[in-house]
C-alpha cells in the first residue's frame, strides 16, 4: 500500500492539533476542517489547508460525514483521521470512506460493529476466553428476563445500554423491586441517546478500578499490547486523571490482561489502535468492560512510558506496514500521569465555563507535556466538550510524577474562564490518591468532603496580591515600575529629549 501524502483531520481541539503535528513530522500534509465556531481555532491555524464544514452545532459540522468525505475528495486527501469522539466510532462512516477509496485511519467497519455493540463484544469476549462480568450476552427481551438473570448472578446488578457510553442508559439496581422501572427508563434513555433501546444486565462490581489495555494491530495479523492505563479517577463516567502503569497491576496481571485483550482483537479481526477496558476488583480479578475502537484521549500516558508515538504507528498501520516491533521489544519506563483541564466550575456544580481566555501562562520543565488546543485570546465555544488541554507528566516513579504534575498545575494560569485546575491540584494533594487508594467512586467521595483550606495561604501571598492589585489598577502618578524604562528611555528622559 502506498504511503499517505495528505490526511484530512476530522476533529477539533487538542486532538486535531496533535494530529496536525504528527502528520507534519511524517512529511504528510495535514488538512483541517472547522465549524463556524472554530474558524480561528488553533488546529486551523496550524494546518496546510482548512475547509469550512458548517454551523457550530456538531450535527451540522463535525458529525457531517458526507461533507467531510466530499471535502476529502475535493482536496485530494488520501486518508481521514477521525481522532476521538465525533465520527471516530461510526462504522457507517468508516465504510463510506472505504467505498470512496479513502483510507479511514482506524479499524475496519466490521470489527468496529462487532466490538462497538457491548452485547456482541461480550459474546466475542467469551469466544476469546476473556473474563467478563456475569450477566447476559444478549439484550433483555423483558424486565422478567432481567429478574431471572439477576436472581442467578445475585444483586447488585447493572443495566447497561448495548450501544451506550458516557453513563447514558445505565442503572444500578440493588433490589428486585427496582428492576422493572429501571429497565423501562434505561431502555428509553438508550433509545433516545443512541437510537437503540437494547439493554443488557450484568453483575455490579463494587469499588472497581478502571484499568484498560492499549492494543495495536497491523493488517498482517500482528497484535501487541502496550501496557495498561488506570483511569479510576472519574466523575459521571468521565475520566479526569489517567496514569500508566496502574499501581495495582504487576507484570503477571499485565501479561494476563494484555494477552486476553490481544485474543479479543484477533477474534474480531481488529486492526489499528484500540483499547480494551476492564474493571478490576479488590481481589485483583479483572472483568471485560468494553472496547474503544479508536485513539483514546489518554493515549499520551502510554506514549510516555513506552516511548512510542501512537499516531505515527496508526498511520503506518493504515499504510499497510507491519508493526516495527514485537511484544517482547516493548518495555515500560517510569510513570506517566495526565490531567484533563476543563473549562468548567467545580465550585458551581461543574457548570461549563465558556468564554474568552484572557490570560494563558503555560507550565514547562523536564517531563512535562501539554497537548493544548487553545491560546490566549481564544473564545472557548459553548457547543463542544469543555476540555481545554491535557497536561501530562513523566517521571521515574508515581510519587515523582505526582509532584511534577502538581508543580506544573501551580505554574499554569488560565484567566477569564473557570477551570478545574484547583480541583486537580486538590486530588494530587489527597493522601488517598497519593497512596493509590482509588476506585471509580473515589472522586465522588472526595467531592462530598469539603475542600481543605490551603494551609500555606500565607500573609506574604496576601500582601503581594494587595500590592499588585494597587499597582495594576491604581498606578501612582510617578512611573509605576522601576524597570519599565529601558536605559535609553532613562537617558533620554534625563537629557530632556522626551517625557
Amino acid at each position, binding site marked *: 500500500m502506498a504511503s499517505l501524502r495528505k490526511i484530512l483531520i476530522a476533529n477539533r481541539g487538542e486532538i486535531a492539533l496533535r494530529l496536525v503535528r504528527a502528520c507534519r513530522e511524517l512529511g504528510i500534509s495535514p488538512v483541517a476542517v472547522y465549524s463556524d465556531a472554530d474558524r480561528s481555532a488553533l488546529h486551523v491555524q496550524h494546518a496546510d489547508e482548512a475547509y469550512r464544514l458548517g454551523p457550530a452545532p456538531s450535527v451540522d459540522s463535525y458529525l457531517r460525514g458526507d461533507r467531510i468525505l466530499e471535502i476529502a475528495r475535493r482536496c485530494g486527501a488520501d486518508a481521514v483521521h477521525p481522532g476521538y469522539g465525533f465520527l471516530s466510532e461510526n462504522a457507517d462512516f468508516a465504510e463510506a470512506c472505504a467505498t470512496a477509496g479513502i483510507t479511514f485511519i482506524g479499524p475496519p467497519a466490521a470489527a468496529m460493529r462487532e466490538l462497538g455493540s457491548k452485547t456482541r463484544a461480550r459474546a466475542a469476549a467469551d469466544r476469546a476466553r476473556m473474563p467478563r462480568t456475569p450477566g447476559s450476552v444478549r439484550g433483555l427481551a423483558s424486565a422478567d428476563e432481567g429478574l431471572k438473570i439477576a436472581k442467578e448472578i445475585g444483586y447488585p446488578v447493572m443495566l447497561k445500554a448495548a450501544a451506550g457510553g458516557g453513563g447514558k442508559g445505565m442503572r444500578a439496581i440493588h433490589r428486585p423491586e427496582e428492576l422493572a422501572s429501571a429497565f423501562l427508563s434505561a431502555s428509553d434513555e438508550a433509545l433516545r441517546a443512541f437510537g437503540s433501546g437494547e439493554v443488557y444486565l450484568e453483575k455490579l462490581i463494587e469499588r472497581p478500578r478502571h484499568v484498560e489495555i492499549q492494543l495495536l494491530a497491523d493488517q498482517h495479523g500482528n497484535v501487541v499490547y502496550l501496557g495498561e492505563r488506570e483511569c479510576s479517577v472519574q466523575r459521571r463516567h468521565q475520566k479526569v486523571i489517567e496514569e500508566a502503569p496502574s499501581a495495582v497491576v504487576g507484570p503477571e496481571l499485565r501479561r494476563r490482561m494484555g494477552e486476553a485483550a490481544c485474543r479479543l482483537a484477533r477474534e474480531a479481526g481488529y486492526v489499528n489502535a484500540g483499547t480494551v477496558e476492564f474493571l478490576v476488583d479488590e481481589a485483583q480479578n479483572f472483568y471485560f468492560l468494553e472496547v474503544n475502537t479508536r485513539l483514546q484521549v489518554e493515549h499520551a500516558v502510554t506514549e510516555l512510558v513506552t516511548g512510542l508515538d501512537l499516531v505515527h504507528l496508526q498511520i503506518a498501520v493504515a499504510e499497510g506496514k507491519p508493526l516495527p516491533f514485537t511484544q517482547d521489544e516493548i518495555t515500560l519506563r517510569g510513570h506517566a500521569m495526565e490531567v484533563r483541564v476543563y473549562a468548567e466550575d467545580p465550585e458551581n456544580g461543574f457548570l461549563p465555563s465558556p468564554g474568552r481566555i484572557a490570560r494563558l501562562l503555560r507550565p514547562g520543565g523536564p517531563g512535562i507535556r501539554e497537548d493544548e488546543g487553545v491560546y490566549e485570546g481564544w473564545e472557548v465555544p459553548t457547543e463542544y466538550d469543555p476540555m481545554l488541554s491535557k497536561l501530562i507528566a513523566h517521571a521515574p516513579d508515581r510519587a515523582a510524577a505526582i509532584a511534577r504534575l502538581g508543580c506544573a498545575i501551580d505554574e499554569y494560569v488560565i484567566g477569564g474562564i473557570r477551570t478545574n485546575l484547583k480541583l486537580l491540584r486538590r486530588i494530587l494533594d489527597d493522601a488517598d490518591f497519593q497512596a493509590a487508594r482509588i476506585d471509580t467512586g473515589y472522586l465522588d467521595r472526595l467531592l462530598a468532603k469539603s475542600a481543605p483550606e490551603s494551609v500555606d495561604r500565607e500573609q506574604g501571598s496576601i500582601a*503581594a496580591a494587595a500590592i*499588585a*492589585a*494597587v*499597582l495594576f489598577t491604581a498606578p501612582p502618578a510617578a512611573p509605576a515600575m*522601576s524597570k519599565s524604562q529601558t536605559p535609553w528611555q532613562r537617558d533620554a528622559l534625563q537629557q530632556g529629549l522626551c517625557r
Partner: protein
Amino acid sequence: MSPLSLEVEVDGVLRRLTLERGGEGWLAYMDGKSIAVDVCEPTPGVLSLLIGDSQAEDASSRSYRCVRVAFADEETITVGRHQHRVVVNDPRSLRGQRKRPGAGNGTLQIKASMPGRVARVLVAPGEAVAAHQGIVVVEAMKMQNELKAARDGRIVEVRVAAGDKVASGQVLAVLE
C-alpha cells in the same frame, strides 16, 4: 511624591495599604508592617514582586509572580498557587469607574473568606449600613478580620451569631 493611601479588599477582607517611593523600589505599609517592594512587569498583566521586611535585620527577599486575571465581575490576582479576589477602593482615581462585585441593584452576600469563628456581629437585620461599614468580625488564624459592606444598603439577613464556626465561602449576612 506624597504617599498613596488606598483601601484594598483581598478575599473580602478590607486592608489599608500605603505606598510610597523608597530607594530603588517602593515602601508599602500594610497591617502595621512596613514592606520593601521591588517591582517589574515582565509582560503586561504580570508583575514580579520581590518583597522584604524592611525592618528586619537580615532582609529576606521573597519572590512572587502576580498575574492579573479578570473574570466576568471580579478581579483576581494569582500569586503562585493561590488566587485572591481583589477590589481596589481608590476614592481619588477610580471614583465610580470600577465595576465591583455586587454593586448596583440586587442583594449582596457577605461571605467568610476563610474558615474561622465569628467574634462579633456588628449589625442587626433591617439596619441601614454605609459602604465600608463593618458587618461581622471573623477570627481566623488568631487574627480578627472585619468584613465590611462593599456598598451602601440595608441588612436583610444575618445568618451567624458570635461564637459560630464558619467555613470558607459561607454566607454570613445578606445586604440589599
